[in-house]
């Protein structure tokens, strides 16, 4: 694998950068806090534009109707979207749900949902977490056979993109282990309540009570979902880590700009050595994270055996770095950084949400250690 960018990759990155800066600066995120969009948690008009540019099909193979450009490319797009904190179901729906369908979906399931995911017409959300701690191995939502049907009972929270979702991929416990089900959002016995998140993105509590699904709802074999789930999550984690890297880089850039221009005690505060050294430390964090993110995405594209460990590495470092940078963004901006009017708080809140998504730094530290055999 190579960790440097190819010319094609540079083009993709620049296109995404241009779009995000022009169409979805942080004011677009602020618009999500208005009532009109607060329930959805993203702007469908912007998502349509993203689909138009093909980003929803980047990681889906050409044989499945996607563009098969791979995860390194998806990461570059996510990184640029992360710069302005663009909220969208891109990673949850197109990367994670899309990957599950590609890896384990039946022909019918693929036909029904992949084209819509790629077109941006439908959002498919992974209904996985059930409480404060991300822990896929301990999913409790119960699914049992009733005749040829399946009955699902339990509560999922938070389900990211859950308010906007047209369908859920539900992780459930069946007799054999973990199983995955494709469940339309309007199926009987499914109800949802919107969660208002600090990062203004869409999430929901989704309740399954007496929900009955046909035999065709099962994705892959019963009890056999753990591996597919892990692999799809790792893809999502790696691309999310790229998004977080972009957020951290933008927060860092804005802070360095401020250090250059804000004058206190008759000089730019960036001339103070204590701030200089902290800025240099942040740069080191960013560079380490960049390497981990690139390596994880390249490993996924190459089908490398180490992809799980690298995904955990990337996600953990991205969490650590984005938190540190966002916190320093607030601190180095001083009082103004504490105001809602300034963007620093948006990065800080997103840092918490993104870190907690699909396992925080501590979760991935443990997983990295486990995968390293100690």
């Amino acid at each position, binding site marked *: 694998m190579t960790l440097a960018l190819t010319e094609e990759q540079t083009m993709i990155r620049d296109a995404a950068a241009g779009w995000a800066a022009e169409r979805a600066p942080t004011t677009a995120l602020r618009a999500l806090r208005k009532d009109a969009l607060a329930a959805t948690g993203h702007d469908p008009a912007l998502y349509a534009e993203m689909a138009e540019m093909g980003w929803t099909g980047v990681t889906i193979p050409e044989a499945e109707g996607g563009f098969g450009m791979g995860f390194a490319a998806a990461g570059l797009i996510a990184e640029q979207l992360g710069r302005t904190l663009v909220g969208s179901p891109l990673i949850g729906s197109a990367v994670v749900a899309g990957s599950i369908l590609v890896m384990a979906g039946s022909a019918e399931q693929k036909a029904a949902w992949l084209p819509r995911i790629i077109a941006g017409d439908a959002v498919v959300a992974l209904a996985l977490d059930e409480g404060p701690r991300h822990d896929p191995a301990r999913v409790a939502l119960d699914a049992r056979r009733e005749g040829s049907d399946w009955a699902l009972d339990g509560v999922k929270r938070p389900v990211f993109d859950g308010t906007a979702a047209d369908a859920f991929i539900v992780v459930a416990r069946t007799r054999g282990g973990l199983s995955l089900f494709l469940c339309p959002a309007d199926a009987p016995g499914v109800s949802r309540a919107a969660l*208002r998140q600090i990062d203004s993105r869409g999430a929901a509590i989704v309740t399954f009570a007496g929900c009955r699904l046909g035999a065709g709802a099962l994705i892959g074999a019963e009890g056999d979902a753990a591996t597919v789930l892990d692999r799809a999550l790792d893809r999502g984690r790696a691309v999310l880590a790229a998004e977080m890297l972009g957020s951290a880089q933008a927060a860092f850039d804005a802070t360095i700009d401020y250090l250059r221009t804000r004058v206190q005690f008759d000089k730019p505060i960036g001339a103070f050595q204590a701030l200089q050294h902290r800025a240099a430390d942040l740069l080191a964090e960013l560079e380490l994270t960049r390497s981990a993110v690139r390596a994880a995405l390249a490993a996924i594209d190459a089908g490398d055996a180490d992809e799980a460990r690298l995904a955990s590495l990337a996600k953990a470092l991205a969490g650590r770095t984005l938190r540190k940078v966002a916190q320093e963004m607030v601190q180095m901006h001083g009082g103004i950084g504490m105001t809602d009017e300034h963007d620093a708080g948006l990065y800080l809140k997103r840092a918490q949400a993104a870190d907690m998504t699909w396992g925080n730094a501590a979760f991935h530290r443990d997983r990295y250690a486990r995968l390293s055999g100690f």
Partner: protein
Amino acid sequence: MSTSAAPDAEAVDDFRREVRAWLAANFPPSLKGHPALLSGHDDLHGPPEDHARWKAAVAGKGWGVPTWPVEYGGAGLSEEQADVIAGEMERIGAFQPIMSMGLMMLGPTLLEFGNEEQKRRHLPPIARSETQWCQGFSEPGAGSDLASLRLRCEDRGDHWLLNGQKIWTSYAHHSDWCFLLARTDTSVKHRGISFLLVDMKTPGIEVRPIELINGISHFCEVFFSDVRVPKENLVGEVNGGWAIGKRLLQHERTGLSRLRGAKAHVLDLVPIARRYQETDADARLVDGDLRGRLAEHLMTDHAYRLTLERRRAETEAGAKPTTPVSTLKNIGAAMGQQRGELAVELIGLNSLGWAGDGYSAEELELTSQWLHSKCYSIYGGSHEIQNNITARHELGLPSD
């Protein structure tokens, strides 16, 4: 501040008995266990009428500021007697009902620098908690570099005329008066600043609350347009305000570091950890990494509280405290911020709530406090400023 001689042991015992009897008669049991107040704007729990009764009773005795002279609304007691009152209140789960920025910051400053008329006019209402004061120091262009402030103050013969802006003025929208620093000479920096008392009802003052990152606001911008301030509201000399302001900031730092210590008792992370995280048969957190980091924080926080205690003991023993206030302020801020970070990590995905029924009130509060805690290292003199003070004034390192 009190000039009374320290009473002997027997007199202390007598005084203690007197305090106990008075507290038994006056502290409303409904308020038992109420947390210490951090400012005059804190939320109160329990029956409002009991709060009012309790406050009035303490104000009547002058026990809100026990060591202030009686003529200024205090009780003229010794530090030792004041400790007895505090100790007895703590013993029975009572709390000091009189607390405000005026009391903590302006009071001691005015006692030192105010003239007799200013003290008689302003201190008693502070002692009875009748007037709320706010602090007009920071300006948009003058954050850590406070002395670069520009609020223009012109001498117009029979009054001062103020024009300009203040920012980060806590509770300005609820305040009756403001103590502020203004520029009376533009040709010099530190020696062109004066200290004024301004009635917030004066025409020309406009207050705009600032929304913070946790959606809450107690900070304001305050705009001054041709605001006329009576001549007698100047404290100290014209252009002599910087020294007064610096002294006031010392009182603020001392107060802040002490209050942050108090707050530590409010939020106990261990029960939160037990409720949100897996524990084993011995009630230990199964996640050893998180447990180690939680322990590390709690230990440092424990040592911080012991440091506040040691400082108090040293002061009482008449010794110069070994721990600089600037150091304490930074440790206190770091503890509050670490606590916030750990709290949101402990409650995990439930920390992502902004509002609504999907999260418990406690969860929303923890997240809000985590966000709010980021200002601990900014306001009251930033982390960087405190470290500069420690390095130069305490360690004697050379300035640049």
